[in-house]
Every structure is written in C-alpha cells, then in structure tokens.
C-alpha cells in the first residue's frame, strides 16, 4: 500500500513539472459516516479538515495531492456485551480517526468563470484508527486501507486569485486486516488560492 502511494506520488510529481499554475486549498470539514462507519459511530463528525493541492497540467485539468482528517465520536449508553463465556457491562466511547492521503485528478468545467465547478477523483490510502474505550481500557484497530474518493466542488472567486470553496467528497476505504470497509461523506468549506 505504501509503495503504491510512493509510486503514485512520484508519477504525479513528474506530471506537475509541466504545471501551468496551481490551486492550494484549506477547508474545514464535517463528516457523515455510511455503512460500517455509521454502524460504529452514528453522529456526524464536526472535527476535520482537508488540504488540497492541484497543479494545472492543462487549463482545465488539475493533478495533485489531498490530505484530510476527520474524527468521529460516539458515546454508547451503559449496556451488556457478550464474548464467548464472558459478559461485560459498562459505558463505551467510540472514536474513529481517519487520515486519507491521496493523489487526485480534477476536471474544471469552466475554470475562468467567477463560479467555477469541478469534479475529481482521488486514489490512495486512508489510515484509520478505531478505538472502543471502556473504563480505563481501550480496544484499538488500525489499518492502512486502499481508498477511493470521488469529489465535486465549487469555487466562488472573490478576486482573481482567491476563492471561497465548497466541496463534497466521499471517502471509501476498502477492508484491510481486521478493519471492515469504512466510508463517509465529507463536506468542506474553505479558501482556495490560485497561483
């Protein structure tokens, strides 16, 4: 997984040598879990960010990297759980920290418009750490998951080089080791600088 990421990063770096400009974006991000992630933690994540960098290889095609973080949290009421011949009761606290690290490709529908929309795809890895805390004990699962991330976004230009951005991303990490597939929507709002 890490080798694939390094190869992808090197490939992207070589493409970026022919850059015609770049976008750098920082966004505050909220997350909504789906599937297994939602089963583990149902509330929204209110803590997260995205850092996106795109090098324009053509006027309407950007290639670059994404780094994101979202932490999900849920407090599970006092209950009894069974594992074989052992039953245990207590309150549980669930945490999921997700760190997608992706190479990304965007297509800008109308890059010169004041309101510019784009679609994109990210491929890479998502490092996930899931904790179940009970009393003073924690049960932890972590995994590097192969990750795909489709995205749509809007840049609203406030000046020639600065825009407000709104992004919608769906991160999907495939099953890896003991960790089942994990997916979540992330909605980001932030600032994009055009170079």
């Amino acid at each position, binding site marked *: 997984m890490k080798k694939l990421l390094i190869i992808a990063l090197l490939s992207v770096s070589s493409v970026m040598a022919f850059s015609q400009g770049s976008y750098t974006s*920082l966004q505050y991000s909220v997350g909504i879990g789906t599937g297994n992630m939602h089963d583990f933690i149902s509330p929204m994540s209110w*803590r997260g*960010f995205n850092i996106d960098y795109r090098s324009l290889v053509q006027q309407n095609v950007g290639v670059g990297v994404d780094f994101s973080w979202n*932490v999900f949290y849920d407090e599970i009421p006092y209950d009894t759980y069974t594992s074989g011949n*052992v039953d*245990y009761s207590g309150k549980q606290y669930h*945490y999921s920290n997700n760190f997608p690290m992706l190479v990304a490709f965007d297509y800008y529908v109308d890059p010169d418009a004041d309101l510019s929309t784009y679609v994109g795809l990210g491929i890479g890895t998502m490092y996930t750490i899931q904790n179940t805390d009970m*009393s003073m004990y924690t049960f932890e699962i972590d995994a590097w998951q192969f990750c795909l991330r489709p995205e749509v976004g809007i840049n609203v230009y406030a000046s020639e080089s600065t825009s407000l951005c709104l992004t919608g991303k769906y991160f999907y990490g495939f099953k890896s080791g003991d960790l089942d597939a994990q997916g979540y929507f992330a909605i980001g709002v932030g600032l994009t600088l055009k170079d």
Partner: protein
Amino acid sequence: MKKHALIFSLALSGLFLWGCYPGGVEYVDDMDVVATYHNADYDFAAGNTYAMPDKIVKITGNKIEGELPEFMLDIYAAPILTAIAKNMDDLGWTRVETTDSAVIAGVDLILLPAAMTSTTLVYYYDYWSYWYGGYYPYYGGGYTTSYTTGTLLMTLFDPDPNEADFGGNPVTQWTGAANGLLTGYGNVSRVTDAINQAFTQSPYLKTN
C-alpha cells in the same frame, strides 16, 4: 504573502481542531465496568447450597511473602457481603453459615469474595535535561499524579473433589469482577450496583 496566510490559517485551524478533540468520560461512575465469566459446561441448577466467608480478603501480595492475609474493614465489607448474599438468595441459593471445614466441604458451591487495588503513577518532568542542561526546564522540575482503581472479585467453585482439575485444585465455575476508579469517598452504592449487575447478567446461576 497569501501562501503564508494560508499556512498560518492551517496551523491555527489544526491547533483549534486538536484542542476540541472529542472527550469521553465525564463522571467517575462512567468508568465502572462489570465482567463475568462462567463455565458453560457446569450445571449450576444441580445445586442449591453455598458457603461464603464473613470477611473479604484483600489481595495484596503479602501472603506470597509469608505474611497473614489482610481483610477489608467490616464497615465496607458488610454491605458488600449483604448484597452478594441477597443476590444469591434471589437466585434460589441457600447460604450455609459455618466455619466448620467438614460442613463447608459438603456444600454445592463456595463463593469467595476478594478485593484488590492498583495505583498507577504518571510522571511529567523535563526528561531531556539530564542530557542537555542548557535548555530551560519548562516544567520546573516536573510533577507526578496518580489514579487508583479498585476491583471486587467474586469467585464460585465446587468443593467436590471430582470437579477439581488434574492437580487437585478447585476449578472456577463463575467469576464476577467489578472494576472502577477509587475516589476516596467510600461510595458503597457504586459497589453494590456493580454486584447487582454481575448477578443480573448471569441468569444461568438461577437454581430451584
């Protein structure tokens, strides 16, 4: 300049977001946990008498060093033993109150309560200063803090020699463990609640 502003915003937002990392436990009793284990092959319904000492032994390690065992103060032990006895009674068991070994050997189950505590020390100090004395010791020499957890163990075993293991030692048929953070306030209801929970989640102990 704009890039510098973006990097500054990034650092600031990172600090802000880590600063409001979601919390967990708010109250001490949120840390209480009860665990029970049972031997699924043992027929608890086959018996109806049990014996239990009128003291709670403290697992301290001094018996390993050849000293006499220590016991929990009666003021704390009495409500705990009462709670255990009430739960056993509710499940249909009859307590045989005796100190005669021969009588104890004839009951269906023996229930042994025990207690232990564990203290964890946490140290904060300028650990780098032994090597790099030129750096100002930020923590001013450091400090320590600690927390203590307490565990009440309840063990049921059958005194029948036929139920012993190959070495002749009694086999645990049921264990209930209640663990929590000790506060020093002697809140016995937390312990009795945990005892009630241990028996509630063990319906297979019910006998006729």
